[in-house]
């Protein structure tokens, strides 16, 4: 993966920069020794590492504003970082950058049940937002699988999803307002406790902009009352295509499950060996979960199972208790760990129209043969968000490159099938150079024009999202301006 050459003029100003940053931040919030900056050298895309020039850990919006203003004046690129759980390299530093970590900003500012909102500092973790309201029966709906660790700041940057977004939507559908600090230090309030922030939907474009438009320091989030209960049904099929048809039929029947998860044979076998959840020996497995009171759940599961029976399942197992539910979810929740135990893996998240599922799975199988790398598929089937896990050996020379080539081919396939490169992980550096597959230069120009407005000097996370050749002219001008 290519990254821009560090700007020597910026590197030469390190001492001056550290001095200025130290004037606006406490001593323990400015990290500039190489032994310590190395802690920020990568995010969850661990194949790529680069220690930043400096890392800062501000505690307030004012401190964030001061840091950004100084970096703006010094012409230093800034890479914002939530908890560093990005699978796409969204928080990967460059050697000439300042990492701005929001981890110390983790307070709940306001909880307001009458208006069903919570206002938090953006470094707060996803799960601890729910933690702040769950005693009162509420929760924050988006649930990325890294929710124990990932920060709201990163959720907003990547517009994170989760297993339950078929019913509750992704981050953008649950975000009502932000405090955004622009690269020049300007603080902007957008939206708040009311619906549909007025004017242009800047909130909509900030969410998912991968930290390239500004640093979000506070967010107003929608909270919901927890459902009375939830229970899944597990179903196994002898054919991926039949499982796909079953998903489509469930949706068409008017039942809207909170989650529909799909696993294919390689993944089922791996998780059985790892977790022993008692899954059936079959080609495709679905876990369909619904919510409501006990009677409502019984009714919905009965409708779903009636549809499933029409597709001749090899197994149909309805949960009747919390224990049975946990057992059904056990394998799915261990899937990543199970695959990781076999080997290193790369997790993709291309999204496809549900109708293209059988075709895409068949093609991925053929590619697996061609590349000689195993692949298992776990899948948010209701919304077409695939998660092929490609196994490779990081210690074997050339295997990573082979795996990346395989991954790129899978993502191109997703786009050809009518889908997209990434459903919830983001572009980062991982899919940056594939953007040409999905978008024309005019499409990319329109997106980059938004960054021009928010960050005219292209200092915020500049080498991400857009193919380097597409953004080069802007980045070169920005460096010349320094």
């Amino acid at each position: 993966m290519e990254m821009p050459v560090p700007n020597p003029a910026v590197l030469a100003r390190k001492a001056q920069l550290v001095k200025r940053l130290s004037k606006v931040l406490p001593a323990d919030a400015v990290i500039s020794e190489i032994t310590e900056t190395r802690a920020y050298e990568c995010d969850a895309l661990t194949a790529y590492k680069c220690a930043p020039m400096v890392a800062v850990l501000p505690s307030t919006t004012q401190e964030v504003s001061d840091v950004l203003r100084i970096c703006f004046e010094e012409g230093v690129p800034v890479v914002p970082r939530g908890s560093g759980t990005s699978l796409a390299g969204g928080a990967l530093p460059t050697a000439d950058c300042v990492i701005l970590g929001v981890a110390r900003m983790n307070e709940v500012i306001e909880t307001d049940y009458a208006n069903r909102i919570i206002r938090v500092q953006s470094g707060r973790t996803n799960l601890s937002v729910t933690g702040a309201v769950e005693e009162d029966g509420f929760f924050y709906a988006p649930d990325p699988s890294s929710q124990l660790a990932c920060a709201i700041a990163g959720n907003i940057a990547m517009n994170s999803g989760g297993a339950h977004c078929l019913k509750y939507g992704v981050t953008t559908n649950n975000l009502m307002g932000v405090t955004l600090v622009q690269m020049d230090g300007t603080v902007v309030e957008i939206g708040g406790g009311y619906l549909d922030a007025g004017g242009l939907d800047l909130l909509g474009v900030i969410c998912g902009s991968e930290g390239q438009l500004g640093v979000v320091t506070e967010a107003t989030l929608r909270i919901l009352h927890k459902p009375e209960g939830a229970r899944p049904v597990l179903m196994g099929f002898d054919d991926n295509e039949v499982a796909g048809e079953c998903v489509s039929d469930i949706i068409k029947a008017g039942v809207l499950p909170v989650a529909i998860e799909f696993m294919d044979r390689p993944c089922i076998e791996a998780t059985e060996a790892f977790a022993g959840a008692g899954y059936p020996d079959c080609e495709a497995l679905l876990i369909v979960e619904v919510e409501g009171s006990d009677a409502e759940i019984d009714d919905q599961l009965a409708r779903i199972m009636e549809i499933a029976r029409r597709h001749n399942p090899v197994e149909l197992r309805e949960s009747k208790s919390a224990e049975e539910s946990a057992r059904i979810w056990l394998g799915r929740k261990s899937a990543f760990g199970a695959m990781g135990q076999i080997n290193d893996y790369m997790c993709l998240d291309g999204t496809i129209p549900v109708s293209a599922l059988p075709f895409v799975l068949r093609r991925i199988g053929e590619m697996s043969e061609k590349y000689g790398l195993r692949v298992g598929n776990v899948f948010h089937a209701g919304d077409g968000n695939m998660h092929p896990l490609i196994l490779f050996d990081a210690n074997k020379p050339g295997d990573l490159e082979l795996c990346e080539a395989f991954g790129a081919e899978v993502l191109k396939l997703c786009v050809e099938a009518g889908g997209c490169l990434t459903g919830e992980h983001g572009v980062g550096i991982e899919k940056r150079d594939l953007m040409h597959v999905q978008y024309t230069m005019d499409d990319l120009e329109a997106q980059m024009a938004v960054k021009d407005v928010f960050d005219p000097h292209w200092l915020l996370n500049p080498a991400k999202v857009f193919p380097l050749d597409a953004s080069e002219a802007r980045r070169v001008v920005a460096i010349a301006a320094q």
Partner: protein
Amino acid sequence: MMTPQSEAELAALIADARGPLAVQGGGTRGFSGTGDVLSAAGLGGVALYEPGALTLVAGAGTPVAEIEAALAAENQRLAFEPMDHRTLLGTTGTPTIGGVMAANVSGPRRIAVGAARDFALGVRFVDGSGRIVKNGGRVMKNVTGYDLVKLMCGSFGTLGVLTEVAMKVLPRPEIEASLVIDTRDAGQAVAALARGLGSPFEVTGAAFLPDRGAVVRIEGFDGSVAYRLGALEAALAGFGDIERLEAEASRTLWRGVRDVARFAERDGDVWRISVKPSDAPAIVTALPEESDYMLDWGGGLIWVLCAKGTDLRARIAPCAGHATLIRADAPTRARLGVFQPEAPALAALTNGVRARFDPRGVLNATSAQAA
């Protein structure tokens, strides 16, 4: 009126424009600017509909009614319940899906499922330079690049002219029913609505009609609706006597709320104010004499009918939110502005984005100035 029949023709028209263009879909919502009328009505037709994937793609000029009919045939619907402005504004014409998205038009169910912008999956549009741009796609989850789909929704044609939209659709529930809580007090009503919306019973409508009461709507399968109605009746019993509205009566009531039928054919300006629900009671108490109002979205959306030329924005200034002048004569619109003025830092961003997408200021420019 210019009514291009293809995206390419539209792009050429915009590139060659010599003066301001008044961009519109069916022209029913009263938001287009002044200038040569440019209608997207020629770009119609459902291009793709996959009920099993809950997705529909249509030309921007497709009549909303055509889309709703196609969805109804598969027992699905546009869940965000777009308002039909013709009742309130007395306009004629055919509402289009492009107009719905360009104005981010959502109805009572917005409180539960999201706005038009939350259901938009992808767009194609022509910007102010005549450049054809696509963004998003037709899948439910998509974080590939910036989300210009949201930016286009609610841009009122000032950033580009939509040519095609891809949407998420949802199943139509088996039945609906409502509860009317007998109260005349806005504070009491908002508290009751908050109780309903803060329950696990999935309320999909929460309005207050001052001469009728606070109303909550439940939708779903028969048995489930019956169960949740009972549970809500118990939860809301302390707020006043409760009347049940069965399917037909419920539907009629919510259609009226959606279209603000209350103010149809009544004299005066109409304002639409978005605030935190708990701020609504104080605002409606402070309305000028002779005003009328109703609340939707649990109190978060205030519709006000007041004497012509009244500047309502001054009255909500202490509360966070925004007020849009939906119906007024041209001089009032020019004097007060249709849209809420923005704080300087935010306005700088908004103006910057507009200047990038429409450098010559030809697309609904007068609307943009009003913003």
